[in-house]
């Protein structure tokens, strides 16, 4: 076990990831069996967000550096896959002026996904070279710059991305089963990374920079690895998004999605995978209710006013309250298997 | 660990600072364990002990920059729940360990900010000038960043800055730390002068020999406990104690 410091941390990781997988798959299967058609879409979107939150956790949770560019990487993943996989007949129509022969080829879904992961992963690696050299706040600001740059490219290179308009005709290759399986895979990846000796070293360095460098840890490389791994997971989220909806546009890959997923991660607790999953579930269900209130429904005979903005206020309030009252999130460093493996001494990192 | 003499001492009414049952914490770790000591008005009291004994922690708790429990009475008022700023306004001032001059401010500004709590601007300005006269080096560097001063100069500045608030008691934390012998002597001369002018002083020192020359009464701290106390003579007579604790031959 060279990746893990001890057999026990490996076992914990397997246990924890399995338990979360059961939880996550269970919810999905319940919806498949009992849910209505429109529930499927909502739940699928929630799974995509779960992937984003996990991708975010891999970097943020282990380095304690706030990342705000995650929706941009998700968008890159979605667009690259979409451009590769969409049939030429449709692209001739929707992207008549596309450069570099982008509208003259089409690939199968698998190759498209691989290309998307490669390109997005490479871009993550390149940007990571800058990010890891900066101090916490500087790094965060540069992630904002990345978000803005990517967004304005999406919006203004309409010949490739169609900007505000819909990029349509993407084959719908995924269903809820596919994304459940992918989510389980990503939960394992994120959890293994957290428990690996690299994850442990990274978290040690995020607490105290000097002591870790004294330990001889090459923080830069570890951070770069976490950043790139996170980028790959985000690209995967984007691919899943595109492969289900069939239509994408640039708008959703910007600040409101950044805030939404950030609130999910923070609520549960960014240092733990359990926290990431828990936060995603809570915000997803909570927001459904808030959105319902937003429309001004009639409840127990009372007509509520329309309250646009309520969901944003709720998200903001969640972030502020968590930061003020419990800045490690609801679960802090807790992982789900600790509920079941109480007797044994679970290492606390 | 007998603290009998302390009890007797604390009965006297002339105590300016009276600390009882003081414990200091960093998070959950307790580094000072229920110590008692006091400082009489106009006296110089030394707090001695090896590295990590808890001297800085004790002195910091008097100003409230670390969390502590127990009672701290200053001029017959319990100050242990007050904010740091209020304690300073009552007349406690510190020249902290490692000096901590404001290195991005000029020498003048350092002295100026030292007088922050004073209302009598004119007198304060004159006092600044008096200090600059006392230390011509500081006067030369009046408008230079204090960070460019040498260690000794910074120490003089720190003490002068602490005195600018016209404190009733001055806390000095290792004023001779890292200074050459000649400069150290200057610092102790300055403290001697202050004492002669009637300033009440609580002095923390590694340099026990020098400190004992100045002090009217001393407390010896080890691992967060007061292990001995007495006049300088009494301490010096316990030669074995001195040499084992501070490495200074009695």
């Amino acid at each position: 076990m060279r990746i893990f410091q001890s057999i026990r941390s490996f076992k914990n990781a397997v246990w924890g990831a399995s338990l979360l997988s059961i939880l996550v798959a269970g919810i999905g299967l319940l919806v498949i069996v009992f849910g209505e058609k429109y529930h499927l879409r909502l739940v699928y979107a929630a799974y995509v967000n779960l992937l984003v939150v996990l991708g975010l956790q891999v970097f943020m949770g282990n380095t304690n550096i706030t990342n705000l560019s995650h929706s941009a990487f998700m968008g890159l993943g979605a667009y690259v896959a979409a451009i590769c996989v969409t049939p030429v007949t449709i692209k001739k129509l929707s992207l008549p002026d596309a450069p570099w022969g982008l509208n003259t080829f089409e690939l199968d879904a698998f190759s498209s996904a691989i290309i998307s992961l490669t390109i997005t992963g490479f871009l993550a690696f390149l940007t990571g070279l800058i990010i890891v050299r900066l101090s916490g706040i500087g790094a965060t600001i540069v992630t904002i710059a990345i978000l803005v740059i990517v967004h304005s490219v999406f919006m203004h290179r309409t010949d490739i991305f169609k900007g505000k308009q819909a990029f349509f005709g993407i084959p719908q290759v995924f269903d809820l089963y596919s994304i459940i399986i992918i989510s389980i895979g990503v939960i394992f990846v994120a959890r293994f990374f957290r428990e690996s000796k690299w994850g442990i070293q990274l978290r040690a360095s995020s607490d105290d920079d000097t002591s870790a460098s004294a330990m001889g840890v090459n923080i830069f490389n570890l951070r770069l690895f976490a950043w790139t791994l996170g980028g790959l997971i985000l690209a995967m989220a984007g691919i899943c998004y595109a492969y289900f909806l069939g239509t994408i546009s640039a708008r959703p890959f910007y600040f409101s999605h950044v805030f939404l997923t950030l609130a999910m991660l923070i609520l549960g607790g960014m240092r733990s995978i359990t926290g990431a999953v828990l936060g995603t579930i809570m915000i997803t269900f909570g927001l459904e209710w808030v959105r319902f209130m937003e429309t001004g429904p009639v409840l127990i005979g009372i007509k509520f006013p329309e309250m646009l903005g309520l969901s944003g206020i709720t998200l903001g309030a969640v972030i502020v309250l968590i930061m003020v009252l419990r800045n490690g999130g609801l679960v802090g460093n807790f992982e789900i298997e600790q509920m079941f493996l109480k007797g044994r001494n679970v290492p606390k990192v | 660990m007998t603290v009998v003499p302390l009890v007797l001492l604390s009965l006297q009414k002339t105590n300016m600072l009276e600390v009882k049952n003081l414990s200091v914490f960093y998070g959950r770790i307790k580094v000072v364990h229920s110590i008692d000591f006091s400082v009489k008005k106009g006296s110089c009291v030394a707090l001695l002990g090896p590295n990590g004994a808890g001297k800085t922690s004790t002195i910091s708790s008097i100003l409230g920059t670390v969390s502590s429990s127990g009672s701290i009475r200053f001029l017959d008022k319990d100050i242990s729940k007050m904010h740091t700023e209020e304690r300073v306004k009552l007349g406690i001032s510190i020249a902290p360990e490692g000096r901590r001059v404001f290195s991005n401010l000029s020498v003048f500004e350092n002295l100026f900010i030292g007088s922050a709590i004073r209302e009598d601007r004119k007198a304060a300005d004159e006092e600044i000038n008096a200090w600059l006269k006392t230390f011509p080096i500081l006067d030369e560097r009046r408008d230079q960043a204090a960070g460019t001063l040498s260690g000794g100069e910074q120490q003089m500045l720190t003490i002068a800055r602490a005195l600018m608030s016209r404190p009733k008691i001055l806390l000095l934390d290792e004023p001779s730390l890292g200074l050459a012998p000649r400069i150290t002597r200057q610092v102790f001369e300055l403290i001697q002068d202050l004492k002669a002018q009637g300033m009440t002083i609580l002095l923390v020192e590694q340099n026990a020999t020098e400190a004992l020359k100045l002090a009217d009464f001393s407390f010896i701290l080890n691992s967060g406990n007061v292990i001995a106390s007495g006049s300088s003579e009494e301490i010096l007579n316990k030669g074995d104690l001195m040499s084992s604790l501070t490495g200074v031959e009695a």
Partner: protein
Amino acid sequence: MDYIVQQTLNALSFGAEYALIALGLAIVFSIMNLVNFAHGEVIAIGGYTMMVMATLAFKNPIIIILGAVLAAIIMALFLERIAFRPVRYADATTGLLTAFGVSLILQNLFLLLVSPRPIAVTSMYFLDWPIRLGPIQISSLQIFETLATLIAILLLVLFLKKSLLGIAMRAASLDFEMVRLMGIRANRVIAAAFAISGLLAGIAAIFIIARRGAVDPTLGFNPVLKAFVACVVGGFGSLPGAVLGGFLLGALEVGMLVLLPQSYGGMKDAFVFAIIAIILVWRPEGILSPPKEKGDKI
């Protein structure tokens, strides 16, 4: 030649706006390590105050300006009291995320209580008239903006150099605890920092409204994003750095507008941010990174 003069003036007025906002961010950051993302909403409050005052039939522009600036100051102080004080001693990430949350709440409150759409505010249009200087045509607004920024910087420097509170603020950026040990109340120093940042945000709001003529919930968000970038390039926490970064950003933006072909105009921000990222590779701590050490510790 005329063209160059004209574009230089453009760059100055762009830069002035960023510098104003960046200074407000930097002064708070230098003292309490808080990256105040809600600064944009303080600007927006200035804008909404002008809107409200205009609908309440306030005619005198001076009163409207004072009202807007005052509202921004009060808002900044209010945010410090209710949102940022609880996280004052927390790490920078906690502060940053708190500020994010506050920004999100306020933007959506504007949306909920006022309107998601822009609302016209024309009371600052009087600041804007064309001026002919020989062959050069400029706007009075640009001159006002540049001048106001320079005056604000000058007054700020005077305050920081001459007043006790100002000196304490400079000292606090290196060693806050030592400032408290001088008997200066921490709350006072921090409130002063927020009041100044609110004042600068209020001034910025006036010029933004004068140019845009309308207020909407995201009025301050984008300018503040840019100002952050200016702060980071200048060296976060350094006040001269914020000013330098602001003007540099203004120059870069105008440069991009001039150099980029028309069809790429919309990508101006992308290019500017990319150049900034490259500058950061060269100097990760920013151009004028502030000193970090806490006095002389042996």
